[in-house]
């Protein structure tokens, strides 16, 4: 009974806070002059300090896009590095305005934590890395393999699901720490190393001879990583969501950082609407007409952000895969701006 009262009181307090915060996030941001963005303390390609001690990564670029949309200044962003345990509390307490921190969009998080996901910035999924010399071509050949896994993660559960669903045995070798997992794989204590494929790609570059290892094509779990905002402020949710859609639409329409000024003169009505030449789509969000133009001018479209931080030419070297646009065989799909 006592617990119920506490829960109700806490829920009430949360609701009250959410209520008072309603529709005010944008005003508060405009008043303070910057967007406060929660990021990781260092996941290469997503958000990590670069050689010049600036935050860099695809998730960082998303935060900068918000700054560009609101202030026409991609540097009007401040970054708060967060650990995975404190990220949601930091968002609900108002310490940050948007959480862009390799966070998987799951039902319980979306419905139970008082947050809303704005979309999917990067479709990740769990994969397998094996030694090339073992001649394994597919994850379905892994029956009986010794698998190195980090304990207490969804990775461990996903692997168990995958092997039992396909009627294969495996021998899990579990470690507490990611570094230990990699070390064990390197020392040959197991045949397979499994974790999210973006992390697999990053860890592969660290190995003695990266070319001796291959990442198998099969992805066994869904890990859509996306930015999230506090529940209860729909204006701010719209801005967070359409910032993401704007960079996706820009790629689809072929608008890049380099040609965005030329594109202002384009005859394509979709491009005209995107860049604010025709119509005023920013007004309903409390932004200027050229909000999307400012984003693309400062940071480029989705493909440019991807290639800059996680694409094949970077140290991480991830092919677009499922993150390609729907027109190129991927699943990145943005509703139209009209």
């Amino acid at each position, binding site marked *: 009974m006592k617990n119920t009262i506490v829960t109700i009181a806490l829920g009430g307090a949360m609701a009250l*806070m959410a209520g*008072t*915060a309603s529709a005010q996030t944008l005003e*508060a941001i405009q008043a303070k002059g910057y967007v406060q963005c929660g990021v990781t*303390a*260092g*996941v*290469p*390609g997503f958000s*990590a*300090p670069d*050689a*010049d*001690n*600036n*935050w860099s990564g695809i998730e960082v670029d998303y935060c900068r896009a918000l700054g560009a949309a609101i202030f026409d200044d991609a540097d009007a962003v*401040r*970054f*708060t*590095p*967060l*650990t995975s*345990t*404190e990220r949601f*509390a*930091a968002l*609900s*307490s*108002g*310490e940050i305005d948007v959480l862009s921190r390799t966070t998987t969009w799951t039902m319980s998080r979306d419905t139970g934590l008082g947050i809303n996901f704005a979309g999917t910035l990067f479709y990740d999924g769990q994969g397998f890395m094996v030694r090339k010399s073992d001649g394994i071509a597919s994850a379905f050949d892994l029956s009986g393999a010794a698998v190195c896994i980090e304990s207490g993660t969804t990775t461990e559960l996903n692997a168990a699901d995958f092997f039992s669903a396909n009627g294969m045995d495996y021998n899990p070798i579990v470690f507490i720490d990611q*570094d230990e997992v990699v070390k064990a794989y*390197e020392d040959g204590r197991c045949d397979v190393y499994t974790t999210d494929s973006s992390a697999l790609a*990053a860890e592969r*570059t*660290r*190995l*003695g001879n990266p070319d001796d290892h291959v990442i198998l094509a099969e992805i066994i779990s869904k890990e859509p990583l996306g930015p999230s905002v506090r529940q209860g402020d729909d204006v701010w949710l719209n801005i967070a969501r359409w910032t993401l859609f704007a960079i996706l639409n820009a790629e689809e329409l072929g608008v890049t950082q380099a040609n965005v000024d030329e594109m202002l003169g384009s005859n394509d009505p979709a491009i005209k609407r995107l860049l604010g030449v025709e119509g005023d789509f920013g007004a309903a969000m409390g932004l200027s007409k050229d909000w999307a133009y400012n984003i693309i001018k400062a940071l480029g479209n989705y493909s440019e952000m991807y290639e800059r931080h996680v694409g094949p030419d*970077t*140290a*991480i070297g991830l092919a677009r895969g499922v993150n390609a646009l729907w027109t190129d065989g991927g699943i990145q799909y943005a509703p139209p701006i009209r």
Partner: protein
Amino acid sequence: MSTTNATKEISFVREEMLPEMPAPSSVVGPVAWIRSSLFSSPGNSILTIASALLLLWIMPPLYNFLIGNAVFIAEDGAACRVEGAGACWAFIWSRMDFFIYGFFPAEEQWRVNIAFALGLVLIVPLMWPELPFKVVNALAFFVGYPIIVFILLSGGMFGLTEVPTVNWGGLTVTLIIGLVGIVTSLPLGIVLALGRQSKMPVIKSVCVMFIELWRAVPLITVLFMASVMLPLFVPVGVSVDKLLRALVGVSLFSAAYMAEVVRGGLQALPRGQYEAAGALGLNYWKSMSFIILPQALKHVIPGIVNSFIALFKDTSLVSIVGIFDLLNTVQASNSDLNWASEQQAVTGYIFAAAVFWVFCFSMSRYSIYMEHRLHTGHKR
């Protein structure tokens, strides 16, 4: 006997002293030293041989890793990825800016340098007992310096660009947290220790409660409370700086420990000292500051410095609430793929350990020096 001898013919009497001979090699010299300190008994001989073998076994690979095969100069991680390469010092060197300043903007880093230099200028004469103007110096260091550093680093006035505390990082933040913790915990701890011995029930119980509460919770919990829970309780829009919250948490936490160390010193004093101070007609504060505390604190210098060192090392715990102290900058850089190699993380941790060692070891040497200086018959 002597008379009979005197009459006899003496065949040889040495008139002058023999020149001093060097002591036999069985008593002095390297051989004797080895014999007496390394092989004085069969048991010691076995231990010596075992230790020598252990060193032979450990030292060459350690030397090869740290110096012999280490990569000192390189453009990127490729040089460190070769087979058999040792520590990747080039990685540390290239990220040194980040380890010292964190995200502090490059064009503003002179401000941090000035703060470091000013601190050095103030703290060296303060710790050098022979130099004069101790009171002025102490005031400048404990009152003026924190204010100047705060203005210098955060900016936003006197034409300095504002640098929010989330951009502070690296060794700068480690030193800020360590120094603030040390400087506030000692006076606070003394007050709490005196309060705990007070005869006034309210003061006494408040102090006991404070000390026992803070001592009973782990520092990690305190930091989590400060960084995660506190913002939920304060009204929306009011936000206390995250670094400040951590500073307050660390200071209060270490003050509770300090109070118990100081109380140990107070209890070690014989009752006669208190009574003598009273007999001289000194009031409470005078007897404390002239008679009791100078003796009590001297007794517990090792304990105080012990707490300081523990506090300085505990500052690395702030990395779990996302504050970029030295350890966190090292950890973040360990995932820098430009320098990706097997030894990257190990090299980073060795560097962090070395920096902490330098500071903690200096503190412990200074405390030994102070003990020698102040000892007046208590030393055993």
